[in-house]
């Protein structure tokens, strides 16, 4: 359990010291109801309505099994949003692939797009934007990031704390199977290489239908006030959910592992605890309301099982029994909070001054009309700049009936309140090449682009989420890139007066010794009081004046 909980993915042991800047430099905000450290940041957008959004990576699973990896990536971020008490209302998908004409891209890309589409479409979540970028540096390590945004009444905000001795711990959703055992600690916390063969059992298969039922039943439970605490099961499965909910409340738990509904009866305790089977949530409920909770689950045809109970306060222990034996007895805080924190060595990459010396001015310029024409056509036809309809038409953009802007716009907009027209605009952006040249400014540029994309729709930008995709933190050059990028993003947010409300770090994105370009993906969310006044990017009418703003 310790090896999982203290893995890079779960403990943020290499990134923690840097990420603190986001909070230290954050401007004070009275909009923020929940910030970093929660499943996702929650921002108030009116007196009664809040939104929550977050972007997360599912890079390594998507390389091993593109379809299922990408699909379960969407599933995971949606559960994060759901756990905050919100109804998920839209998704976005920033993607990075190797060269467009590489045979392995032909394997990975269709699977990824299909997986994202199938899962998101089946959940009824409109896809309102994303990115498709090709670069050889992602050949052996594509990036699959997924963003979800959700909406909640301000007073429906949920907590993960397992408070109240005697409250019942309930597992809701899918049966637990052997899928994904060690997925997080193994796949996301190690370099990716040819040994992936032996890691194959880590593949998880998603069931979007079950997730849809999970969404509807959780929302019904929230509205009926039946939930004391809730946490999604993602990486590290029950281990993570049990320890985090208990540690957050400073309580203990007594759990009978035999009660966990299993897909394969022969599973051993450590497998049950580590399984990353999808479409499960952990609930803390008042024993007097347990029957009501079970009734809601039954209405939606979901399994709900009481696993045990919360035990008395300070210094409480997590006690897990199986077949009459105690298999775990630890203080939950030691797993969740006492993980190691590293200040890893950093060094500026040797080749950076060479890269910077190789200036764009030295490139040949088109001089004649024909050359210009040829350059323009080449640009327009390049995979990174061409029309992305071939991807986006595989995604449902209309479902829920509130999509006001989506592809090809620079920001997606969803209406949140039909009466007033209140809505949000979101954009996700990143530029690995810029960031490779200069991580500090690359991260700032990603933020600035995303911020502009949101602002030009007419929205007021209010919050930032980020997914920091980097190589191995054990490589001092990568660690330097990471530190610089975080510093750049934190400074940029400070200058723009907008807080980072949550995000995700993905390390070990490399093939052998070669890391990907450092790729911080930045999502900005803005608020429109009335989406009827949004500005789309197309020219509207003949005779309109065209102005160029800025330097």
């Amino acid at each position, binding site marked *: 359990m310790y090896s999982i909980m203290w893995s890079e993915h779960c403990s943020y042991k290499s990134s923690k010291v840097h990420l603190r800047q986001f909070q230290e430099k954050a401007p004070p905000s009275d909009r923020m109801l929940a910030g970093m450290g929660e499943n996702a940041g929650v921002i108030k957008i009116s007196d009664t309505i809040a939104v929550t959004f977050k972007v997360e990576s599912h890079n390594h699973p998507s390389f091993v*099994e593109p379809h299922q990896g990408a699909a379960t990536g969407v599933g995971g971020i949606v559960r994060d949003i759901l756990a905050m008490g919100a109804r998920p209302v839209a998704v976005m998908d920033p993607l990075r692939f190797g060269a467009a004409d590489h045979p392995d891209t032909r394997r990975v890309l269709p699977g990824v797009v299909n997986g994202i589409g199938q899962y998101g479409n089946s959940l009824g979540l409109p896809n309102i934007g994303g990115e498709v970028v090709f670069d050889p540096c992602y050949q052996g390590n594509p990036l699959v990031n997924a963003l979800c945004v959700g909406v909640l009444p301000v007073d429906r905000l949920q907590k993960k704390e397992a408070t109240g001795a005697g409250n019942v711990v309930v597992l809701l959703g899918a049966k637990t199977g*052997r899928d994904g055992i060690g997925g997080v600690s193994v796949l996301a916390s190690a370099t990716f290489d040819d040994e992936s063969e032996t890691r194959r059992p880590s*593949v998880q*298969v998603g*069931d979007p239908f079950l997730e849809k039922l999970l969404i509807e039943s959780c929302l019904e439970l929230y509205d009926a006030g039946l939930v004391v605490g809730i946490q999604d099961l993602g990486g590290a499965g029950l281990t993570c959910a049990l320890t985090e909910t208990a540690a957050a409340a400073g309580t203990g738990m007594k759990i009978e592992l035999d009660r966990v509904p299993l897909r394969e009866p022969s599973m051993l305790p450590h497998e049950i605890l580590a399984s990353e089977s999808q479409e499960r949530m952990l609930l803390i409920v008042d024993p007097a309301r347990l029957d009501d909770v079970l009734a809601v689950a039954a209405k939606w045809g979901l399994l709900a099982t009481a696993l045990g109970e919360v035990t008395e306060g300070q210094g409480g222990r997590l006690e897990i029994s199986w077949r009459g034996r105690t298999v775990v007895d630890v203080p939950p805080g030691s797993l969740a909070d006492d993980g190691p924190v590293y200040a890893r060595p950093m060094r500026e990459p040797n080749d950076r001054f060479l890269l910077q010396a190789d200036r764009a001015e030295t490139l040949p310029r088109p001089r004649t009309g024909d050359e210009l024409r040829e350059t323009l056509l080449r640009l327009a036809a390049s995979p990174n700049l061409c029309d992305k309809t071939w991807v986006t038409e595989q995604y449902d953009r209309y479902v829920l009936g509130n999509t006001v802007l989506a592809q090809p716009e620079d920001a997606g907009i969803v209406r949140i309140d039909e009466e007033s027209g209140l809505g949000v605009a979101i954009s996700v952006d990143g530029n690995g090449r810029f960031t490779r040249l200069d991580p500090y400014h690359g991260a700032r540029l990603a933020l600035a682009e995303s911020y502009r994309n949101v602002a030009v729709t007419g929205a007021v930008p209010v919050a930032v989420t980020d997914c920091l995709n980097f190589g191995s933190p054990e490589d001092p050059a990568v660690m330097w890139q990471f530190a610089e990028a975080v510093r750049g993003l934190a400074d940029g947010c400070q200058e723009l007066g907008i807080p980072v409300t949550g995000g995700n770090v993905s390390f070990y994105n490399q093939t052998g010794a070669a890391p990907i370009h450092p790729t911080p993906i930045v999502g900005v969310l803005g608020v429109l009081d009335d989406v009827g006044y949004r500005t789309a990017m197309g020219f509207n009418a003949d005779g309109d004046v065209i102005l160029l703003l800025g330097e």
Partner: protein
Amino acid sequence: MARVVVDVMLKPEILDPQGQAVANALPRLGVTGVSSVRIGKRIEIEFDGEPDLEQAREIADKLLANPVIEDFTIHLPAPAEADK
């Protein structure tokens, strides 16, 4: 007929949402006594000449089955399979 059949099924430890959905629907049809349903693919390959099991295996391996999550078996169509 020069037909070879490739059956592709999810590995036993992999979740099969399709089969599960069907199994859950059965009680509504008044069917009890079914403990599980698994759904895979049946692929019929028609050869011009002789049925070529080796080649079918190669096609299955490269194209029809996803070795990360699926297993496959290859056989000639059994007469029993036509007992509708």
